[in-house]
């Protein structure tokens, strides 16, 4: 990480005597005033005071009223970017400040042609996690306090954030156009990294003091990442145990009512008409009744496990473990845990990392004559009589 930072990424210091959040929104307000960008996308508290919404703002005054780092993530930022740019980014130069997982999702959507990044500056911050939406709504004031504490501590509080956040190792993503090193905000200033020439131009045009001492920050990030990595190993082990075998999956998804909230909250699932809700996938009533006879009854709505495993097949390679699916589930199924666990394994097999600005195609859109070892092994295992199982 240090090498990357030293190689080509420039940094600046943002004065933040009055607090990091106002410093960042203040910077973006200035950017609007100076015409460095035409609009910024930031969270703003909703009038009822118990949630946040993404607001695309042209008026600098609005940027002053917005929040840089919302404690809660009601809408995955990539969904906002999708709605803005899907039909083309046009001439509006926009800076979007989001959590790393939101930018990573936007990168995947970019590969899917659903987000156009041509006129988009993507900015991230070191994220300590997000408060679960229901918890935030129940007591916004307490949740704000918890979040402020976590931001200062540079880490999530167990039970205080979405479970996915505990295991997130991408919380400090530095390949965005801009990255605010909020875990390094000390002594009244915040380091800002430029991850691209566009990001650099942005910093230059705002006249920030160049150069930042990042050593302490890097160390802190490294330490926090180790902790999250350990948490992730534990989470994967636990989840792997829970879903093992058919009974495992049945048990984890037993309460599913087929509402599709998980899919709707997912930034990657962009299909207007999901295959699993289409006429093609509709069960034939006769086949249905036959199945009922054989299995001792069929649960309705039908094919819920097919939906989940099918959705996994379609998108888990691009899963950025943002945890929105679990947050949206009305019956508290740990969807994100399962999808993250499975996604991790399949990505490893394809040697693919989701959310990178790497120009690499999505694994299912390409092929190699000789695939990575993990894939070749899977295929060999599946060949009848071809491979012995010891």
């Amino acid at each position: 990480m240090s090498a990357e930072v030293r190689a080509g990424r420039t940094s600046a210091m943002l004065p933040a005597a009055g607090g990091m959040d106002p410093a960042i929104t203040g910077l973006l307000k200035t950017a609007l005033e100076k015409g460095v960008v035409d609009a910024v996308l930031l969270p703003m508290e909703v009038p009822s005071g118990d949630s946040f919404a993404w607001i695309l703002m042209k008026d600098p005054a609005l940027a002053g009223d917005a929040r840089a780092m919302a404690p809660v993530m009601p809408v995955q930022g990539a969904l906002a970017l999708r709605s803005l740019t899907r039909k083309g980014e046009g001439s509006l130069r926009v800076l979007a400040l989001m959590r790393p997982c939101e930018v990573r999702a936007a990168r995947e959507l970019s590969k899917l042609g659903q987000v156009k990044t041509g006129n988009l500056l993507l900015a991230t911050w070191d994220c300590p996690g997000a408060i679960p939406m229901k918890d935030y709504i129940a007591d916004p004031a307490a949740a704000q306090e918890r979040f402020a504490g976590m931001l200062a501590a540079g880490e999530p509080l167990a039970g205080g954030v979405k479970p996915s956040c505990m295991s997130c190792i991408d919380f400090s993503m530095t390949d965005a156009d801009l990255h605010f090193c909020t875990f390094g905000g000390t002594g009244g200033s915040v380091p800002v990294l430029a991850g691209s020439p566009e990001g650099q131009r942005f910093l230059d045009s705002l006249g920030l003091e160049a150069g930042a001492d990042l050593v302490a920050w890097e160390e802190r990030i490294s330490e926090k990442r180790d902790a999250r990595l350990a948490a992730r190993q534990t989470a994967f082990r636990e989840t792997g145990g829970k879903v093992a075998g058919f009974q495992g999956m049945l048990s984890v998804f037993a309460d599913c009512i087929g509402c599709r909230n998980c899919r709707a909250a997912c930034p990657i699932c962009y299909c207007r008409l999901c295959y699993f809700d289409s006429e093609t996938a509709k069960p034939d009533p006769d086949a249905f009744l036959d199945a009922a006879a054989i299995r001792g009854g069929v649960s309705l709505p039908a094919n819920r496990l097919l939906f989940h495993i099918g959705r996994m097949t379609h998108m888990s390679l691009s899963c950025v473990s943002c945890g929105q699916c679990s947050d949206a589930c009305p019956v508290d199924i740990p969807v994100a845990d399962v999808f993250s666990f499975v996604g991790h394994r399949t990505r490893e097999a394809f040697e693919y990392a989701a959310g990178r600005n790497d120009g690499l195609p999505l694994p299912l859109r390409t092929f190699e004559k000789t695939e990575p070892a993990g894939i070749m092994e899977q295929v060999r295992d599946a060949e009848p009589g071809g491979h012995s199982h010891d």
Partner: protein
Amino acid sequence: MSREFAPRITSFLCKWCSYTGADLAGTNRFQYPVSIIPIQVMCSSRVDPVFLIKAFLGGADGVLMGGCHPGDCHYETGNYHARRRFAIVREIFDSLGLESGRLRLAWISASEGPKFAQVAREYTEQIRDMGDNPTRRSLFL
């Protein structure tokens, strides 16, 4: 409300009656305010009630739907359906305390140039008194 406020009234006018009536007002020089922004539709039943809502939320100070008199619809029954749909949207607005006065349906025939001008003038005054639509300033819609 300030006299500078220039109401914008998105108007869906059916081709056979109300739009032609509006044209007639124009050719005969019956004065009516520029507040009316006419959109021609083949029939008032072409107006998806969601258009009315979209216009309202989009910041139109008034939304006018013009059709043939009941019984005179060029397509026989279109305006009867339009009338029911309008009633539903108005009821929804009333039940939620939204200003249903900003929605207006008028039966104006092709020959009723003066009537069109009168409706346009009266409605514009009404909207002027109501002031501009607060949706114009809302970020959270």
